[in-house]
């Protein structure tokens, strides 16, 4: 039968967890939703999902710290940040922590599914910063 990619979601806001779970339900298999960084590590270790969607600001362990620890594994899941933070310093920190994708929370509805699919295929998917020179010519 058809296998959908297995995803773990981590966010300390239960309303966001639930809306993201519903958003992804049609195309992904959300195997766990957790509300802090340590719970995310535990769930990922137990369930071995193909990808994880992480908030940055979470209790116990931040999303960035979770990503750093996951990146040290031999076969880490693909890491996508879903965050309200839109500054370049957060995008850079996410890349440095080993993320392959980043979605601003206000764009979750339009972008999260696409970004997850891209990262599952091995692509990097980060939003472009407006003040950054655009490498693609118009």
């Amino acid at each position, binding site marked *: 039968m*058809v*296998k959908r990619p297995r995803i773990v979601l981590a966010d300390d806001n239960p309303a966001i967890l639930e809306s993201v779970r519903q958003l992804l339900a049609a*195309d992904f298999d959300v195997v766990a939703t957790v509300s802090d960084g340590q719970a995310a590590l535990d769930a990922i270790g137990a369930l071995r999902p193909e990808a994880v969607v992480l908030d940055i600001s979470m209790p116990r362990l931040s999303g960035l710290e979770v990503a750093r620890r996951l990146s040290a594994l031999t076969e880490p899941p693909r890491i996508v940040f879903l965050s309200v933070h839109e500054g370049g310093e957060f995008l850079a920190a996410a890349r440095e922590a080993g993320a392959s994708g980043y979605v601003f929370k206000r764009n979750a509805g339009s972008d999260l599914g*696409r970004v997850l*699919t891209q990262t599952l295929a*091995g692509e990097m998917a980060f939003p472009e910063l407006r003040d950054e020179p655009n490498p693609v010519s118009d």
Partner: protein
Amino acid sequence: MDNLPVVRVLAVDDSVPWRGFLAAHLVKHSVGVVGTAGDGLEAIEQAHTLQPDIVIMDICMPRLNGLAATREICRVVPASKVLIASNETDPLIVQAAFAAGACGYVLKSRVALDLMKAIAAITRGDLFVGHGLTPGAGDDRSSEAVWQRGTELVPGTRRS
């Protein structure tokens, strides 16, 4: 644009986001997606109608799986070459895909790195096995390999 020959691709997968990703990825690399299909039966119909150069084919799909569809497309649309893009890593499934007539096999998790290499190899007439895959149990050839067409990839199933 130059007068380069444009590769025409039919993208077959039951996941709508995946088909969208494939189309976006291929367009970025100047490969034209002429059609999509969501299962094996639709793939056979579309391949027959569109006569694509390459059919990118998932394996796990409803109605008719990608291996059965590959076999049928190689029979009824011999000009179209099939490239499998799947999460399946089992050597027996990889072997079965080539036995069914596929010219290439890449892992979905490696598409960003392997897909264009595979398309180039297949277009040249070679066979392509992506990183992390080996065709057939006990086959110790290293991963990611291009073989000349006619290589005995799967004993007794050589395609001319």
